[in-house]
């Protein structure tokens, strides 16, 4: 309820900025008038009374700003202002804007593509149960002068699979 009222007040300030600013002005104006009236009753002339009231009040412009800081659109309004300002600047320099936007687009595209690649090759786990226990097996034959490496034969694979002692699963690839 309280939050809803606060959000409504902020929203109203966003949509009707002048209304909120005007309300603050009217409220401060009322105060100054009342104080001046009180001074006038003590015998000051209208101008002096007004001056004395203003002195006692402090800077109206400052108070108005500080009041608007609390009652205005707040952070959202500032962000919107920045966004509008940004769009205007982009519009003023279409060439530079186009280059900047293209550079950003290329950068984002390239990063995404690279990440997809690295993710598929390096980061994603292999599609086997307990991939951290995976080993690859090659058969080495060592005649005197060189080493022959070959993949295990299908009959080896079948035997390991039946044994199920050294390895729990056997696959080929």
């Amino acid at each position, binding site marked *: 309820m*309280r939050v809803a*009222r*606060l959000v409504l*007040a902020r929203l109203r300030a966003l949509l009707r900025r002048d209304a909120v600013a005007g*309300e*603050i002005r*009217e*409220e*401060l104006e*009322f*105060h100054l*008038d*009342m*104080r001046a009236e009180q001074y006038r009753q003590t015998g000051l002339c209208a101008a002096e009374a007004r001056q004395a009231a203003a002195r*006692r*009040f*402090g*800077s*109206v412009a*400052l*108070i108005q700003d*500080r*009041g608007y*800081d*609390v*009652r205005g659109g707040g952070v959202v309004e500032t962000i919107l202002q920045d966004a509008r300002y940004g769009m205007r600047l982009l519009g003023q320099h279409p060439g530079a804007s186009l280059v900047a936007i293209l550079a950003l687009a290329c950068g984002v595209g390239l990063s995404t593509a690279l990440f997809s690649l690295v993710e598929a090759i390096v980061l994603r786990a292999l599609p086997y149960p307990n991939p951290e226990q995976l080993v690859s097996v090659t058969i080495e034959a060592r005649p005197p002068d060189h080493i022959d490496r070959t993949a295990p034969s299908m009959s080896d694979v079948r035997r390991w699979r039946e044994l199920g002692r050294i390895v729990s699963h056997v696959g080929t690839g």
Partner: protein
Amino acid sequence: MGRSAKTNSDQLHGTLDMLVLKILQAGASHGYAITVRLGQLSRDVLQVEEGSLYPALYRMEARGWLSAEWAVTHSGRRARFYKLTRVGRAQLAAETASWQRLTAAVAHVLSS
């Protein structure tokens, strides 16, 4: 004015909220009436720059301690009237209690 007035308003800054809440406890009131009442109750010892009351009012309104609406005064002018909410009442009670604790402790130290 000058130096002493400034010190006064600095010291007052933290307590302004509490004083305003206290004044509004007696009933809804507009900003000008609050300053008049503040002057009467404190026998003009407490003088703030009157304008600084308004940002404080808006802040308390935003926190839900006060609710505000426009109404017409006796003299027929539109003014924004502030009213204590339930949350504001609780806040006043809490601030009053902690203020009394603080001043009692300070008085105790000063009189030792």
